[in-house]
């Protein structure tokens, strides 16, 4: 158990170090999120009422679009630099690599989520403060669901033709429950409804997270084989 955690940590550490030195993914994702805000503004128009109605959907559209770009790159470094074999050489349970990669992705996506939320409050002039605890729960659960399947599928599509195309096509329909649950829960949280009104969505999210995580841990070794 301890060695498992240590191996997973080494993978996270490696990825974070690469990201800190190259700043490749985070910078581009931040810029992309900023651009999305402009696109949303053009699509919805200046009407405040309409904006309030579509805001939860837009927020998660932003998360998922940046998530697709970020998650899809999970194993690109290993592929391009021929380090896939090195990953394979990690002794013991291969799912430690999955957990490590997943943790890195969750960290990356949470960073993007916080940035995106901050940008939303500024550009669309909304007050998120009262909903922050509820929003945090939704974002963490939603990110975990998105990243757990995303990491697994990214490992699969990394070596496939038309990888950029196949990854979203594969991931999006599978993630419909997560998307619906997060949008609905965010909607209720922003409207100031009591927790009981949307607790069932959080339960569904938690159930989805558990199923995806278990499936990912169990099946990852089959994906990693050369």
């Amino acid at each position, binding site marked *: 158990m301890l060695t498992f955690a240590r191996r997973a940590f080494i993978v996270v550490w490696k990825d974070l170090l690469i990201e800190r030195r190259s700043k490749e993914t985070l910078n581009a994702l931040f810029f992309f999120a900023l651009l999305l805000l402009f696109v949303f503004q053009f699509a919805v128009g200046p009407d405040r009422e309409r904006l309030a109605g579509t805001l939860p959907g837009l927020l998660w559209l932003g998360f998922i679009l940046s998530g697709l770009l970020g998650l899809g790159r999970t194993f690109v470094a290993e592929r391009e630099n021929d380090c896939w074999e090195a990953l394979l050489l990690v002794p013991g349970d291969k799912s430690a690599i999955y957990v490590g990669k997943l943790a890195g992705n969750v960290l990356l996506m949470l960073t993007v989520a916080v940035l995106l939320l901050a940008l939303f409050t500024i550009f669309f002039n909304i007050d998120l403060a009262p909903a922050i605890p509820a929003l945090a729960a939704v974002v963490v659960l939603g990110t975990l669901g998105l990243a757990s*399947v995303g990491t*697994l*599928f990214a490992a*699969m*599509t990394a*070596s*496939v*033709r*038309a990888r950029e195309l*196949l990854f979203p*096509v*594969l991931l999006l*329909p*599978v993630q*419909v*429950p997560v998307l*619906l*649950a997060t949008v*609905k829960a965010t909607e209720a949280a922003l409207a100031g409804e009591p927790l009981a009104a949307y607790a*069932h*969505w959080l339960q*569904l999210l938690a*159930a*989805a997270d558990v*199923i*995806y995580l278990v*499936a990912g841990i169990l*099946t990852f070794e*089959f*994906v990693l*084989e050369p």
Partner: protein
Amino acid sequence: MTRTLGWLALVGLAAGLLMAFGVAPRELTQGNVQRIMYIHVPAVWVAYLAFLVACGASIAYLLTRRADADQLAHAVVEVGLVFLGLNIASGSIWGKPTWGTWWTWDARITSVSIVFLIYLGYLLLRQSVDEGERAARYGAVVAVIAAPNIFLVHQSVNWWRTLHQPASLLKAGGATMPAILWGGIIVNFVGFGLLAAYFVARRVALLRREAQAAA
């Protein structure tokens, strides 16, 4: 063996048609349009049964690495998609005169279509992997995740929106449908199931020959 299955399927389908058009009475409010139900409902049952089999066969493949388990999973997903497509198309044809629209974002139409897209992704993925063994592994992983995900999709979309009439057959407290209509569905289900099994047997034989030719 396969040939017998084919003849049995033909008999089952003929019996199903007889039940749907001969034995079952004309429905009072909807008229003859209601007879689409005898295709619509059995088709989705067969499709979902197929996806369940695909999940089981995929688990078997990952554990044993036997090529025939993967061939079964592959064939079953293809056939399941055909029947799910039949379900969606027949529902759409029924929806036009009854609901007044070809398509509506009702809960069950939406969730069934999402399941359709998930398994379409499965075939797309297999197609883009060149090595057969790797395609088999990747496909198996997707099929294993997709099956429990069907429940999540249905639950979430149900909470999201619902307009479709509640299930008339599979629900607590027994069916709200006369036995004669019920019987039509069951006979058609058996017929469709036999047809699907025949398709799968044919497809598996073809996949096996493809694998032999490639080897």
